[in-house]
């Protein structure tokens, strides 16, 4: 299938602040193929938004230090001129955001805001652009689109606003859509509808999608591949089935046990990951997850784990210093509902004796 649509290599985004250097994104790499869906998952502050805004060329803070490469369709984006980036944004790569109310301009009609995006890239008349806006609104399932195009964002409901954002993003048939927490600000019932809509449109337009979320449940259905981010790095990466069936990073396990499972009984507890995300200025030495990791060993506080393929599956990568066999044993206990502490006692005590 040739070169991937989007290639991100060793991307770093650091911010110089009064308090020190904030390593918001610290060397991440991923690729997205045409028509494919990538999920990027991680807690708040792990650098998901910063990394995708950087891909769009929208990290504008003067204190930002950006390095690495971003190639789209073979073209280098980080070195591209502002004018080139402008013609790519909203045209080849489009983006939708978390809060659709604050993301739409309060003073302009929804139709006008969509039409404006069309006219930024197509040489069409105002009327044609407006028609396109109406067409898109109807495509995303807004009833009476011609009438609603004439309304202001505050006259829409939350779900309708996000639909309008999607309409705006897809109006120019982009090859890549980046959805940054598209459902976080919405009601649970609406969330599913919006995800379905994105999936439907994606297959209709053959758009590649990057979905950013802190909730693995959101990407379970739609993503082909998932990258798990922690403190500015990717700590695990695999196809979706593998992430759910055979994850090999303690942080991913934590994320998995903190999503409600449809098959689990209602009263089964959700276990949030204990502790808080680290300061991005003073990252803990060694494995940056170690202060929160139930399976940490002395050595992990000094050695920085690399993202490496796990044994037997080159497409599955994990950044954990534990031996793959140990990780698998731990997971097989955890998935049956054993608590992390007990799993640790069971598996690691035995292993430590063997050493």
């Amino acid at each position: 299938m040739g070169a991937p649509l989007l290639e991100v290599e060793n991307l770093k985004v650091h911010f110089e602040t009064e308090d020190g250097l904030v390593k918001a994104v610290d060397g991440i790499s991923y690729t997205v193929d045409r028509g494919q869906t990538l999920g990027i998952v991680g807690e708040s502050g792990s650098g998901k938004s910063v990394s995708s805004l950087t891909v769009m060329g929208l990290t504008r803070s003067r204190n930002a230090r950006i390095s690495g490469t971003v190639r789209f369709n073979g073209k280098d984006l980080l070195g591209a001129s502002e004018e080139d980036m402008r013609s790519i944004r909203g045209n080849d790569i489009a983006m939708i955001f978390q809060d659709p109310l604050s993301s739409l301009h309060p003073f302009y009609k929804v139709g006008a805001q969509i039409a404006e995006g069309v006219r930024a890239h197509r040489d069409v008349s105002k009327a044609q652009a407006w028609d396109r806006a109406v067409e898109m609104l109807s495509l995303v399932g807004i009833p009476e689109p011609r009438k609603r195009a004439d309304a202001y964002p505050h006259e829409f409901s939350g779900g309708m606003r996000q639909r309008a954002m999607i309409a705006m993003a897809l109006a120019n048939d982009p090859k890549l859509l980046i959805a940054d927490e598209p459902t976080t600000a919405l009601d649970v019932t609406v969330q599913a509808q919006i995800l379905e809509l994105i999936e439907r449109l994606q297959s209709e337009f053959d758009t590649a999608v990057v979905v950013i979320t802190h909730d693995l449940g959101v990407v379970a259905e739609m993503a082909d591949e998932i990258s798990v981010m922690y403190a500015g790095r990717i700590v695990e990466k695999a196809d979706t089935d593998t992430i759910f069936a055979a994850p090999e990073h303690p942080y991913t396990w934590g994320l998995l046990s903190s999503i409600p499972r449809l098959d689990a009984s209602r009263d089964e507890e959700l276990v949030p990951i204990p502790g808080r995300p680290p300061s991005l200025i003073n990252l803990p030495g060694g494995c940056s997850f170690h202060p929160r990791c139930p399976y940490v060993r002395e050595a992990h506080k000094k050695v920085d784990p690399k993202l490496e393929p796990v044994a037997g599956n080159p497409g599955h990568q994990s950044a954990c210093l534990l031996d793959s066999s140990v990780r698998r044993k731990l997971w097989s206990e955890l998935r049956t509902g054993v608590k992390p502490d007990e799993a640790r006692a069971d598996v690691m005590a035995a292993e430590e004796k063997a050493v």
Partner: protein
Amino acid sequence: MAAYIARRLLWVVFLLFTITCITFVIFSVLPSGDPAVARAGRSPSPQLVEVIRVQLGLDKSKPEQFINYIGDILPFVGGNGIYLGFSYQNNTDVLPEILERLPVTIFLATGAVILWLSIGIPLGVLSAVKTGSALDRIAMGIALLFISAPVYFFGLVALYLFDDQIGIWPILPGNSAYGEADSLLGKAEALIMPWCVLAAAFAAIYARFLRGNLIDTLQEDYIRTARAKGLSERRVIFRHGVRAAITPIVTLLGLDIGILLGGAILTETVFNIPGIGRYAFNAITVSDLPVIQGTVLFGAFFIVMMSLIVDILYAFIDPRVRY
């Protein structure tokens, strides 16, 4: 919309009524001395004081006085049109005197408004877009300087430097020039210095205000959306940023115009411009209470009306506040 306007109108009527009551209290209830003497101005003759006492009905009870006062002000009550009192010192009715001076004040205010908007707005936008640049620092430094001293000090400095009679560089007509000029052009020339002095202070305020607003606005999510659509930076800043950031300026401008139309008292005093403000100032120096009371009421009326206009205008500019 109609309901909204009706509500604002009621509010305005309420405010005007309250203001009228308060002026009555200020000028007829609070002062401790003999009101007839107070109204007569400095060192009046006993006969005049008696005449005033009878004419104004000051021998009647306060409530009766208040009803007469309201009747005087309301156009269709009492058969005397709008009556804002009589100046015993000048032997003239107050309202015609005010109206005669209104064009001068309007002329002064209009020129200053145009000047300060055309300086303040571009400067505010530029400073916001280039935050932290040398231009921003210098512009905001100067703005702070202009905000920090009153117009009458800068007015005096301007006269000292540029007045064509006493100035170090005598290039502009200055003190009292407006009254002496007989052509429209001459009057305009006489206003150059006051316009600049008045506009400098306001331009500084507006530039700072707009800059702060625009910096905040440019951090908004919808600006990120505009950029993500691939709009040009120009369009992002002007159509999306400035459009939102400038809206509150309407409120500010309305209030400031209202205040100035009631008399730019400090500016008119320093440059001796025969507008409403100067009229009020002269009245203050000779304690001509009827004139002060009349100008205060007149000014208050402008301020309240402008706030009404602004409220209604705002509903058109910001779709969110409708109704």
